[in-house]
Structure formats: structure tokens, C-alpha cells
């Protein structure tokens, strides 16, 4: 079973990477970008085919490792 986890910075938390990218886009002449915030994604292959079990594993992964819940939020989605 495949799933995708996305981890993004909570609102208000400084995103130096996003800021640098905004600056670079500007000087590259790519106009029309208001703001960029960078996050992470994880494509996960799970052993189970049981959605409930998959969900439990994903939640454990996120809480315990993938997201730094001090500054980040996470979401996961099980692929069809």
C-alpha cells in the first residue's frame, strides 16, 4: 500500500528556505509569485493492505519521527 506524507511549517514559523527561493525567483525574472513556503514530502510504501493498520502506522511515523510538531504540521493520504 502506498501513501504520501506531507509536512509543512506551521503558520508564523520563519521559513528561510521559502524566503530565499522567493528572492531567487525575483532575480531570475520569474514574476508573479507572491510567496513560497517549503515543506517536505515522504512517499511511503507500507507492508499492509489494511487501511486501518496503514493509518496507524502513518500516524506513528509522523508523530514520532517525520514531523517536528514543535514547528511543523503533517498530513497523510493513502493512495487509492
Amino acid at each position, binding site marked *: 500500500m502506498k501513501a504520501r506524507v506531507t509536512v509543512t511549517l*506551521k503558520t*508564523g*514559523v*520563519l*521559513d*528561510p528556505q521559502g*524566503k*530565499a527561493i522567493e*528572492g531567487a525567483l525575483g532575480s531570475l525574472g520569474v514574476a508573479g509569485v507572491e510567496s513560497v513556503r517549503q515543506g517536505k514530502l515522504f512517499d511511503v510504501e507500507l507492508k499492509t493492505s489494511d487501511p486501518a493498520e496503514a493509518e496507524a502506522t502513518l500516524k506513528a511515523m509522523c*508523530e*514520532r*519521527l517525520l514531523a*517536528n*510538531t*514543535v*514547528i511543523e504540521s503533517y498530513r497523510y493520504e493513502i493512495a487509492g
Partner: protein
Amino acid sequence: MSSAEPAITPELVASHGLKPDEYDRILKLIGREPSFTELGIFSAMWNEHCSYKSSKIWLKTLPVTGPKVIQGPGENAGVVDIGDGDAVVFKMESHNHPSFIEPYQGAATGVGGILRDVFTMGARPVAALNALRFGAPDHPRTRHLVSGVVAGVGGYGNSFGVPTVGGLVGFHPRYDGNILVNAMAVGLAKADAIFYAKATGVGLPVVYLGSKTGRDGIHGATMASAEFDEASEEKRPTVQVGDPFAEKLLLEACLELMASGSVVAIQDMGAAGLTCSAVEMGAKGDLGIRLDLETVPVRETGMTAYEMMLSESQERMLMVLHPEKEDVARAIFTKWGLDFAVVGHTTDDLRFKVFLNGELKADLPIKELGDQAPEYDRPHVETPKAAEIVASSVAAPLDTREALMALVGSPELSSRRWVWEQYDHIILGETVQKPGGDAAVVRVEGGPKGLALTADVTPRYCEADPFEGGKQAVAEAWRNLTAVGAKPLAVTDNLNFGNPEKPEIMGQLVGCIKGIGEACRALDFPVVSGNVSLYNETQGRAILPTPTIGAVGLLDDVAKSATIAIKREGEAVIVIGDAKGWIGRSCWLWLVAGREEGAPPPVDLSVEKRNGDFVRSMISAGVATAVHDVSDGGLAVAVAEMALAGRIGARLYAPPAGATPHGWWFGEDQARYVVTTSEQNAATVIDAAAQAGITATRIGTTGGDRLIPGEEAPILLDELREAHEGWFPRYMAGPAVDA
């Protein structure tokens, strides 16, 4: 005065960390109820972190002057003359609580903050150090904290571009819930081009520089002064994220700006950001300050005056500018892609006035805000003296070989290579001695002179006897500098303790400060900067008293600095200094015999000075081929480290008649050094020492691939190295734990 701000209730006052009597003081001072913004300003200025209210009366007892001191405590960093028109600028600061909550960002912003303190004074940072204390290795969070803190220290310093050349790492269960992250930065400036926070001149523009302001770390300074409890993990989003890239740009822009002659006064925004920096610039210069907050560059919409005044967004500075240079200054900041905004001006009314869109949000007497902060002479009780433990009264659970293997492979004494290999310690190309020796040596660009740098403290000694422990911390830092051949110059301190409202804890603080003061006076080693971190307690249990001492020494010629590595086979191994085999509070007693007991070794400062001066003279005469001070783990560990560093073994004589083996090999008597010298010079050294009234004892000869402690079983260096180098990487490779 304000619209839609919370009413000032006793609960609101308490949640700002202000005690009822402190609030009364505010009422008396301004003659009315403060606005919400004003309450925030007071809480920031009067908390422990900014006001030093519990420690100030004791800090005043420290020696802070000397013939070479250009600037002592009271500015962003201390400044000491190193000749040829050069000055060294340095300070140490804690970031303990934020690092416990978010180790990577907490440690990173700690490094960022201290670097900013140094370059705010006009100095280019040339070295960084860090003193880290973690809980027991088997505590479920320790590994995660070590990995995050080390990555954060490295992540910031490496990117900023300063070599991280030294520091320390310790483990003890008393830090389980309160780790310590003390960061030190060292910079070089011209002695006649130092910049200060004191503003002069009325009507001058107050300029905001650097990154934009967000809602980061609001209440960060209050958090740093509040005891930890379970609930504080909830206050999480107050953690700040560091941007070393922005700080590197800020460094270059500030140095360029200073060189352009535009700067009247400059102050970094550290704890309590805009509030602290603006008040300090005005108060020091006997000027008022007016701020118009709508001009502050922000990265979030709808920020209130309260939020802007308390934000701890990183990588920001405040400056008073020569008005005719505004265009020059703006061009420099634009070039570096940083924000530059005139946010207010100096006034002659000695008021701190804050406006937002024309609305007055705060109007406070600026001098009193700083000067009238509460100051406490808190009750304190002395730590009861522990009894001396005589080595012969303790049975040795392991033989010398096994005990030495256990010590060099212990969490406390094993190699820290895993840590410092994550720090760029060679950038700038001036690192003459990298981490791993007694003190780092960094050449002053162009040479031949150089700086020796170290950070040290032995908390278990401080716990047993704060006064002796305070002395010992200074003595050991002094000894580390001496051991590389440097003349010790001055110190910075970082006093980490528990809750000062408890008389026993206050007693530790007082005892340590007295000890530090005594040692600094005896060794002509003034304190030029420092930082205090209190309330390091979790659920009522305090950390070990940990007054970290950072120290700087001067070498006239770095080519003559001594290292700990044994250089050649067949040289004499000599111990300088007397020993009675002091086992109380030693690493051996703790780690081998499992007892954390007894009085710590006493420090005789006149002996310390005499022995150190002698060792230094042997180094500058080129007689000493390797030098290492004897500290944690005693003689056997010292010689083992020298052998490992030089990849040459040594055969050591058996302990003298009457000495207890573990007292001899592992005792931690103070004021001692191990020195190697050629066979021809050995007698000369011992005679010269005798003439100076110093005990110098030959204890063996270098050579071979093993260490042979007297009649006991030899230890192959390869085995010793495996134990010494192995612990840290093995530990860190262990199972991951929850973040």
C-alpha cells in the same frame, strides 16, 4: 491609551512573570496602571534573564578590570587588548530551555545570538566554542537531544562561516529535564574601532536592520527564566527558527557599514528584541527613544504593538545613525538584500515612547526601566561541607588496566570526535590546534601571534563545594590555556543554576561566584562578560550547579604552542605538581566505584599560579615536547590521552611506596601537568622546578605501542583507542527514540 487590549488583572500580571511587589513597583514608578504593551515591556526588562535581579549584587563582586581590559561586563561582549592595535572580543551565552524544547533550532539560534553579540561590537568572529550538558545517556530523550543540539550548533556555525574549535560535552542524570547549551563566540577587532550600544545626540534616526519581524519567541525571554514543568512543552510555537544565511549577510553588511563611519551606536536584538535593544541604547546614552512601529519590517500581518515589542525574531539589529549617512547605509543593506528601515529617533525627554499608527502604546521613563529593575539579596545557605575521602579507605573494584579502559571509554571521558567532526573547525585557515587538546589555538590573521581558547567547569565539584568548585572551574580554564603555552588573558562566564528562590540553590550561586572571584583575582584573570541562566529545574529538581568558564589566552608565536601528543620515543615523562591521591568526587570514584561522594580536590591558587607559570616557561623555552594538564580521570587518563594523540606509548613507573594505586593513577589533585621532554633535558627540568619550589617527578619514559602502568598488565594503544573513540559513535548509532 489603548484600544481593545486585555485588561490588566492580577492573573495577567502573574502570567507575565511579575510578582505582586514587582507590579507595585511599576505602579509607583509610572503613577498609573500600565497598558498591555507596557506590561509586556516591563515583563521583558524585569525578568531574570534581562535584569539579573537575583545575581546582580553578587556579580558586582567579580574582578572586571585589568591593564588589558578595554571593555568589561555591561556591553554586548567583553573586549581585551592583545597588542599591535588588535583586540579580542568575546562572550558566552546560554540557550538552555529553547534547546530542550527544539534541540536543533534552540542550539542554532543560541549560536546565532552570541555571534551577533560579538559582531555588534565591530569584531569579525574568528572562533566559536560550546559547552553542552545532557542527561544520562540512557534517558529516553538524551540521544535525540544530543543529535539535534550538535547538528544545530554545527548547522548555524558552519553556514555562518566561523570555525567551531572547542567546547565540552557532559552527561549526568541531573540534566535529564534541563540540558545546557552554552555558546561562546570570539572575534577580532581593531582596538580603536570598537562599537558600543550607547547612543549620543538628539533627533538622530533609529534604524532597524536585518530580517523581518514575526511572532517568534514571544515570551521567549520569560520562558528562559521560568521553571520547567510538564505544561511548558505546550508553549511550543514560541521557538524561533534561525537563518544563518541572513546572519552571514548581516555580519558583512554591519562590518561594511561600520567601516563607512555611519554608526553612532549599535545593539543587536537578542532576548526581548526591540524592547531591550531600544531601551539599552537610550538609557546608556541618557536619551529618550521614540519608536513608530508601523515602520518596522514585518513578515506577518496584523501584528500588535505588544507582539512587535516582544518578538524575538532572529538576525536583527538596531542602530543609531549619523543622519547624513542614511543613503550610504541604506545602499549597503540593499546590496546585501537586508531590510533597512528608520523606525524612530532619539529624543531629549528620557522617555521610551512607542507609537503604532500614531497611537501611543507605551510611554515609560527610560532610565528607570533598566535601572529601577528589582534587585534581590535572596536568602542563601551554604552547602554543607562534605568529608574528605581517603583513597586507601575505598576498595578498588577493578584493577588499573580495567579501570583505565572503563574510564577512557566512559560517556564522560570518551573522545568527542563524533561531535566536533560535525563542526567546521578549519574554515578561515587559522586553526593551529583543532578540538581535542587542552585549548584550541587560532592564529590572528597574519600571525605569528594567536589566541588560545577553552571552556570548562566540573559540576560535580561545584555541587559538593560551590566555592572550591567555582575556583576550580577558573583554575582549570587557566590551566588549559597554560598547557598550550598561552598567557591567560580574561574570562567570560555562564552561570547555570536552579531556582534562586530556594536558599540552597542561591547558596550554590553565591558560593560559585565567590570562588570564581577569588580565583580570577589570584590569577589576574578578569571577568569581561558573561551570562546567567537560572530556574534550570524540572519538577523541583535542579541541575548540578554549572558555572561554565570560557577563557582566552594569548600566544606571541603560535609556532611555539604545545600540544598533548607525545612526539618521540625515549623521552622522559614528568609530572609537575604534588599529589596526595585525591579520590573524593573523582571520575574514578563516580564511574568505577559508583559513588558520587566526598569533598572535591581543593585548589591552592598560589600553587596553581606557580606551577602554571613554570610550565609556560618550559614551553616557551622549547623544552617541553608535549604538555597536558591533569584533570578528570587523573594521571593515567592524562597520559593515555597523550599517547593516543601521539600514537606513541609509554612505560610508567609503579606508584611510589605508600601510595594507593587508584589514588596515584586516578586521583584528581589540582595544579598538575604531565610534560614530556628529551632525556637530556629531564634533569634540568626537575632541577629548575626544585629551584622554584615545585615538585616535578619523573614517572616514566615514552615509547612502544602500549601503555604500561607500573607492574600491571600493559594496554595496547589500539585497544585503548577503540575504547576511547568507540563510545560516542556507538551510542549515537543506538536505537532512535521519540522526538
